[in-house]
Each structure stands twice: as C-alpha cells, then as structure tokens.
C-alpha cells in the first residue's frame, strides 16, 4: 500500500493509504481528527473544508496521495496552544453563527480563507457569495454572515474599509 507524508496542524505524519483514499478519510480515520466532517458525497456541502498549503480545500475532493508534502490545517489546529480561539471561531460564538455544529468546522475554515484573501474588504453580498460552497441547514446563514464580517477587522487588525460595507 502506498504511503503519504503530510504535516497536519504542525505535526508530521506518514500513513499507508489506498490509491482511492480521500484526504478527509485520512484525517478522520487515520489521524483521529474528527472535527472535519463529511456531509455529502458530491463535493457540494463544504463540511470537510480544511486548509492545504494555505488554501481552503474540500478534503473529500482530494486524494490523500495528492497531499504528499502538504501542510494541512484542520479546525483542531486553529486555536492557540493555550486554547485561545482564532478570531473567526470567537466571532462565530459571539454572533450565534452555529447551531448543531456540524457544518461549523468547514464553514469556519472557508470563512477564514475568504477573509484572508480579501484584504480590500468584503461586502455582505461578497461574503454570501464567498460562502456559496458551504451548506448550513440550521442558521439561515444570517448570523454566519454577521460573524464573518465581524471577524474581518480582527483578522486584518484594521477597520473594514467603508466602501466595502
């Protein structure tokens, strides 16, 4: 069986996988990182989003072998070692942007990538379109959008440009 070596949340792992094994299966089943969820089988729901080399990726859409040498961050790797939450996690809590919690890890990972890649600011519409790849059945998205907008100034350490609001 082929092997893949990847770094997940700063820790290097070498695991034996089948050719068809998906990255999400390695995370959940081989590494016990069950915070990354599986919500569909057609790459539609985004519950499995993680960061691979700094980009958000649906980990059900990537073969584990494609992650050879990659740096992967999952929801478990966001908080600081002392437990301090990432600003996006903090704003999700503050704005009640989660209910059942199932879509939350993927939603948070997507939202972080969205905010990080838009230093020029984000309008409400852009946030909604930017989260188009993540399904949530509980919140109606209202509070998720609020949380992402609230996290932007915290992540960029400046006020959201007025033009973007």
């Amino acid at each position, binding site marked *: 069986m082929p092997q893949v070596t990847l770094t997940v949340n700063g820790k290097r792992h070498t695991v034996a996988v089948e050719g068809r094994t998906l990255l999400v299966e390695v995370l959940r089943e081989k590494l016990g990182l069950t915070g990354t969820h599986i919500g569909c089988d057609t790459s539609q729901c985004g519950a499995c989003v993680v960061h691979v080399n700094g980009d958000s990726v649906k980990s059900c859409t990537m073969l584990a072998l494609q992650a050879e040498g990659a740096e992967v961050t999952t929801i478990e790797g966001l908080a600081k070692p002392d437990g301090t939450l990432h600003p996006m996690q903090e704003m999700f809590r503050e704005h009640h942007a989660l209910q059942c919690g199932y879509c939350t890890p993927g939603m948070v990972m997507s939202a972080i990538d969205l905010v990080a890649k838009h230093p020029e600011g984000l309008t409400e519409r852009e946030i909604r379109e930017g989260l188009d790849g993540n399904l949530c*059945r509980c919140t109606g998205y209202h509070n998720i959008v609020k949380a992402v907008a609230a996290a932007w100034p915290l992540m960029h350490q400046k006020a959201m440009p007025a033009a973007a609001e």
Partner: protein
Amino acid sequence: MGFEGIGAAVKRKEDGRFLAGRGNYVDDINRPGQVYAYFKRSDRPHARILRIDTAAAAAAAGVVAVYTGADFAADGIGGLPCGWQIHNKDGSPMAEPPHPVLAQGKVRHVGDPVVAVLAETRQQAKDAAELIEIDYEDLPGTASVLDALKPGAAVVHDEAPGNLCYDWQIGDKAAVDAAFAGAARVVRLDLTNNRLVPNAMEPRAAIGECDVAGNYTLYTTSQNPHVIRLLMGAFVLHIPEHQLRVVAPDVGGGFGSKIYHYAEEALVTWAAGKLKRPVKWTAERSESFMSDAHGRDHVSTAEMALDAEGHFLALRVSTLANMGAYLSTFAPAVPTYLYATLLAGVYKTPVIYAEVKAVFTNTVPVDAYRGAGRPEATFLLERLVDAIAHDTGIDRIELRRRNFIPANAFPYQTPVALQYDSGDYETTLAAALKAADYAGFPARRQAAAAQGKLRGIGISTYLEACGIAPSAVAGALGARAGLYEVANVRVNPTGSITVFTGTHSHGQGHETTFAQVVADQLGVPVSQVDVVHGDTARIPFGMGTYGSRSIAVGGSALVKAMDKIVAKGKRIAAHLLEASVDDIEFKDGKFSVAGTDKSKTFGEIALTAYVPHNYPIEELEPGLDETAFYDPKNFTFPGGCHVAEVEIDRETGVVRVVNFTAVDDIGRVINPMIVEGQVHGGVAQGIGQALLEQAGYDAGGQIVSGSFMDYTMPRADNIPNIHVGTESTLCTHNPLGVKGVGEVGAIGSPPAVINAIVNALDAYGVRHLDMPATSQKIWSILQAGAPRMAAE
C-alpha cells in the same frame, strides 16, 4: 456574573466544543473491533425479488457477514412499528402493512434496503456489495398520490387495496355544506405542497454493540433516544429495556428526520448481537436522499364560503397525502392531527370540514419535517386568503383583519378540535407591517420597475400548535405513546447542578437555555449547571425533541422538579434556622426567614442535604435530587405575521427575496439570541421550500433528485437578512408561559414568499403558483404572455 436568567442573550455553552472540532457525533465514535455495514438498496421503485445471490460477496476480502430479509424472517423479527393509528370515516383502522428491516419478497421504493454486507472496513463492505446479484421482476410503480389512486394502479401493499392507507375526516360536514349552500360567494383553490428532503447536514449513522452478557448499546443520530429504545427494543428486536442502552450524542441537525426508528438502527443492533462485535453504519448523502423520511407532499382542494362582505362562513378542504412506500413512525398523524386541526388558523371561520386520504406510493416514506402538517395547513390557508382577496377585490390585509379571532376571544374553541389559549394576531400583524415598511412598498416597487425588476410583497398571518402534547388527547387521537416530558434535577453536594432531561438538543442550544431556566429559578450561575441529554442510561424516560416541545413540555418538567428542590430546601433551611417552614422564603439563591436577616445560601442547604449532621433526619431523607414528569394541559399556539418582499428579474425569471420580516408570538423568550437563530433557520428552510427545493420523482417512482447536485438547497446567497421581532402573549397553561419557536419560521414563511411572487406578477394574471417557484417556472410565465397592463 451578569444577568443569565430568563430573557438574557447568554452565549451558548455548547459552542466551545463545536468550534474547536471536539463535537462527538455518531460517526466520530469508533468501538474496538467494529465492523462496517453497507446496504445494498433497491435501485428500482417497485419489483418482485426473484433471486438474491450473495455468495461472491460473502467470499470477498474482509467480509464478515451478509444478511438478507430471510435472515430476519428466520429469526422471527417482525417489521418496524408505526407509532400512530388513524381511523377511517367508518371507524375502521387504517391499513398498516408490514415494514420489514430488509426487503422481503418485494422492493417498494428506490432505496429500500435489500442486503446488508458487514466487513472489516467500510470500503470492503462497499466493494463486496458490488458482487451481489439480485434478479428483479419489475412492477409498475407510482410516485404521485393522484396516480396511485387511479383504478388499476399498481398496488404497493396487498394489505392496502387501491393504495389507500386511510380515508379520514374532521369537522361538521352537514353544517359546512349548509353554509356553502347559503354563501354569497365561494372561492376555490387547488394547490400542492411540494415534497422535501430534510437534509440535516449530518447524515444518519448508527453503531450497534452487544457484550457477552447480552447487554446492547446503540449509538444513533436520534432526536429521541428513549423512543428508539422503546420502539426497537419492545417491538422489533425484543430486547428488554434494561439490557438496551441508546445513546444519541451530538446530533448534527434533525428537523424531524431523526425522530423515527429506522431499519439501519435495527440491523446494526441485531447484527452486533449475532457477531458479538460492534457494527457501524454511516449514511452517504445519496443514501440519505433515498432513506431519510421525506416531508410534505400534499395535493389539496380548498374552498371558502363567504358572505357579501368577505366574512369567512365555512371552509371545506380535501387533501391527498403521500405516505410513501411504508408508514414511518409518526407519518399517519402528520396530515391529520397536525394538519387538519390547524385549518382554522387565526380566523374565526365558524365551521370547517376536512377529509384526508393517505396514499401509498413507490417513494421514500414521508413523515414529519420541520412544522409537520402545520406548514401545509398554513400554506393552504394563507394562499386561499390571498386568492379570496384576488377574486373579491378586498384588500388582503383588510380581509385578514375582518376575519381574525379578536384578542379578547381567548380561550377560543375552533371547529376543528383545538382550543387556543392565547394570542393577539392584530398586534403581530401591525408590528410586522411596520417593521417591513409595508406602507413604503409602492415607492420601492416603482424604483424596482425603473430598473426592470418586478417587485412584490406578501404576508402570511399564521398560527401553529406545538408543545406536543397532552397524552390523553394524543392517545384519543391514535398515538401509541404518552407525550409528557421529564427532568431530573440533581443538586450536587457543593451546590452545582446537573439536569437530566428527556428532551434532546441537536442545534437548539438546550445546554444553555435549560441552564438559564435553572439559573433564573435557583440563583446559581449558568456555568454551575450542566445539562445532560441523549443517553438512556443517564436520563429518565422522556419523549425527546420534536414539535417545538422542548421548552414548553421539557422546560415545564424542569420547573416542576426545581419546585420540589426548593420545597425540600425550605424544610432543611427551616431546621437550620430554627423557623417554621411556612416562614421560609427562597429568593435569589437564598433561603431566609421572612422579616429577618437570617438566611442560608443555596450551597449551604445543598451541603447540609448531603452531610446531614444537623438535619431533620426523622422526617426528611438526605440528598437533594428530584425528578418531575410534566404532561401538558394543552398544546401551545405560537402565531404571528411574516412579510416577504421579492424582486423578479424579467430576463431570467430569478426570484430574489430582498426583505424578510418575521414577527412571532412565541410566548416568553428564554434566550433572544437563540430565538432569533431558530427563526432565521426556519425561515431559510421556508424560503428553500418556496423557491428551490423539490424532491423529484419520475412518474414511475425513480428518484431524480438524489444528491445536492440536483436537489437545490438554499445557500448563503439565496437568503436575505431576516428581520426578527417578537410580540409575546404568554401561554396560560404552563409554568414558564412559553410556546416554542423551533418551527414557526418554516411554517409562516412559504406562503408569505409565494404571496409576494403572485403580487409581483399581478400584471400577468397570475392567481396562484405552486412551490417551488423556480426561475424556470417564473420565466415561462413571463414568456407566456405580455402583461395585461404596464407593470410600471
């Protein structure tokens, strides 16, 4: 601590673990030595099974066992039970055909499980299932209730000739017919309520386990673990309760679809007993589409008899309800007692008659989905009222006001069994119209028209019945279970509190709101209260969460249990303070002697109860741990007004909901942040139903919306910001005055959206539109004819 009691927007206790990726959902659980189950399901709607050859699968790598329906028959295992029995007009019971765990003889819908393959790995089980050969003799199938009732239609069950499950009625037919005979006018509307797939984001999963002594554990994605234990233990597998533990840990959304006892739960538990190894199954989303109970799917005719001024004289409704291929746990109750009893709505219609035929088809079973019967009733009524306004020319707001049950008429007995205890529909209507700037709509419409957009506004003034249910009433109506709730309040020796509730939280935030109720009543901080749910080995026998019942029924049980705690605490305090029990007051976490400064804190009383050195031991047991069951006296009746404003792109037919306002009367609010979140989510599901969602079947029963690629779920850019307001009248018959909020959003919103679209299309002569109002449907209307008048 700041104020954390009833009414405070306390941040959720459960969020920490979810945000850190430390939730504990069923698929996150792995048991030592577990094998994986995979189901070979029917890929055809209706067929006789001629032969099943599992030899190659059984010999495949890693395969531990292969089971078919014959194995269950050989073991004397019957079918999955139905929890509700409806009676026909003539008093005879409904047809109740068997629902085997694995198909026996025939398959009746796409997704019907036929063979279970158990293997060392998930992939091995799946690979081996590919080697199974099944010879089928295809039979004609039906998907729609109209087709299934046609003479000569293929019969789904021999036990139900003509595919009729039941033919039920409610109300005074003679009085209604007389009112119609004397009416100045009759307005009729034919409408359907589209079939939906609940699609909680967590797919269902189950792990069965059995130890050497025959003690079973089932981990399952359930909204009601005790109900599953009772149904599966007593009626399917014959495992006594004390040897069956059901755990529903973190559950990723339910919306009704995780109430029911499903075949996969029975299979993994039964197989674990055979193999003495844990058996795990997790649904793939494609399986969810063909095995989770679907929702809605009604075809109805509604007629209102009116006097010359537009007063409602009588309502007559005839509905065909799709049951799917088998009766799911609550299915028969949904189009009857959760639907037809709601047909008075907020209106003082003096007489109502409804008849409902429930029909078997070759589709996935249909059962309660968020709102369950009440969205169907609300859509029918609120569309009918707008159709009356359309046909009579009476303003739709004025028409509603003319027919509202007035605020001084409560308690109000409807002609369809329910007695409303409280409500004020004029207040919620006025508040919603104001918040939505209804008066300013014409200017917005004009501005939109200038940009080539068709803008419309619609309202619905809805009511629902929840907090189910008084057990005796439910029993008289055919329920085979009681519907009370239970709470156990365990005060720990140092004064912290553990609450064990029979309700289940799968997104609702009970760990926070129930703790707030405790904080409010006992004066301890929320951080000192732990709420335990979802494990039959820990919680007392309660009925779980559905029908917006948790706070109304479970919260009431919690208050009753705390009343017992306070009563006992007073006796302990009286002893310590050398006073009469009658003189002890409990307030803000302190027991004090009235009119003195002598007091003991809650924590001191708790410690004394567990270290009873100075204690009235002759007359009082040690400990401070009380359980209460609460059987509600009535349903609760949330109601309100939803206002939707839409814009239609004339080129593409795309409908965008641009404003949405919900003003709901849900009784006392425990946590406004959570209440708003519940309304947001419900409204989004309602907008999804109105614009996007349709569980599609072809005429023969082949499923054509089998994944998120062809079933349109609402995404962030389909949903607007939602303005939520509350205007409360208190429930009069439960101790908290609460009514429930879980379903109001999904109940009130679909007709508001469709009414807005019909309003936007008024120039095109549109009187009614069935859901979902897809862009294709709207585009066709726009193409079909030039406007009767200039929309501008």
